[in-house]
């Protein structure tokens, strides 16, 4: 099977999921519809609609981790092609990536020592 037809299959499956969900919704609609009553559509908190927008309440306190995550995530993009040719290249590949990972790991240790691995 060619690459293009494989991706066409995946695209078709994604569209198919929308079809499945729509038909489920249609089935549920056929069984009955929601009755509009006051107070029913308020999100589960105190029974009344929140006065302020709710998104101000949550603070992401893991910024240090997030920055380190960016560095490590970039590194993974290099590691997949490296992993595939690893056995062909042999010891050279181990040393190359070893140096790279050692630098990255030192970065992690430095971040740790500076308190990045903590919920601020």
């Amino acid at each position, binding site marked *: *099977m060619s*690459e293009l037809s*494989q*991706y066409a*299959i*995946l695209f078709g*499956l*994604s569209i198919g*999921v*929308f079809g499945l*969900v729509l038909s*489920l*919704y249609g*089935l*549920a609609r056929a*069984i*009955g519809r929601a*009755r509009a009553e006051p107070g*029913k*559509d*308020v*999100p*589960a*908190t105190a029974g009344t*609609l*929140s006065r302020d*927008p*709710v*998104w101000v*309440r*949550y603070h*992401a*306190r*893991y910024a240090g*981790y997030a920055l*380190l*995550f960016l560095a*490590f*995530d970039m590194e*993974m993009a290099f*590691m*997949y092609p490296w*992993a*595939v*040719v*690893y*056995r*062909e290249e*042999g*010891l050279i*590949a*181990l040393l190359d*990536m070893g140096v790279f*990972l050692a630098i990255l*790991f030192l970065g*992690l240790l430095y971040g*740790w020592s500076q308190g990045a*691995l*903590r*919920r601020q």
Partner: protein
Amino acid sequence: MSILVVLLSLAAGAYALAVIERWAVHGHLSLTGPAWAALALLGRESLLARKSDRLFFELGPVLLLVAGLMAVAVIPLAPGLIITDLATGALFLNAALAYVLVALIMAGWGPNGAYAMIAGWRFLGQFIAYAMLIVMPITAVAMRAESLSTVEIVTSQEQLWNVLYQPMGFILFVVAAMGLAWLPPLDLPDATGELAGGVEAEYTGVRLAVLRLARMVIILALAGATVTFYLGGWLGPWLPPWAWSAIKILAVAAAMLSIGRYMPRIREARYLALSWKLGISLALANIFVVGVIALVVPI
């Protein structure tokens, strides 16, 4: 043809998993229970929260289902029984499962409810904890197989399953997979009893049915990934390949579901600290150890 077979077995697997979940979590073994529960959900009202972000609210569960199905598409059940044998299968699996995060944040943001919103953002923190521990063990698996194709990865384990070849990677991957599928004790985004259901709090009726189905598909995809990468996929004596796949996948999923019964929920801060301080170090050590073994031993 094989696509249809995989899709049908996915449906059967999702149903079997629903039965197993009920049994593992609540201790009731009922073969018809999930069918009645699904029918009841279809019959219930599906409410739309006031002032909701309609697009995100509607798309969240659907995107979750799409992500789960895309991940299932690269998991081989038997030789030739796979939806698409992509050359970059292992990478594609990661890419598909990255959308779990997007879908959950959309589902949390959508209804404009405090509990759902907190749950969605919590999952972002959880993502930063588990993400590296999904990709790093897979790298070590690809190093041994010299390929990212999931079929090649299974055939590379003919001599020795990866669970024995790289046990550290197996443990890290399973724990990270449980974080990805927000299974207890890492169930921060729905946190039953603490956040009133979290991202599931505002979903009712048929929308909740879609969300639950998507969750089952994602658990199956992750159990399938564990089996493919570490437990030798369809390989095994006596029984036909598809039977081995089914047994292994359901057993891994059942184990993942039942661990939560015996452990308290882990806080986000603690999970982040554990996976970055201990997990990443172990994952890097795992890559190095597998690298040395792969150069010395020819299997």
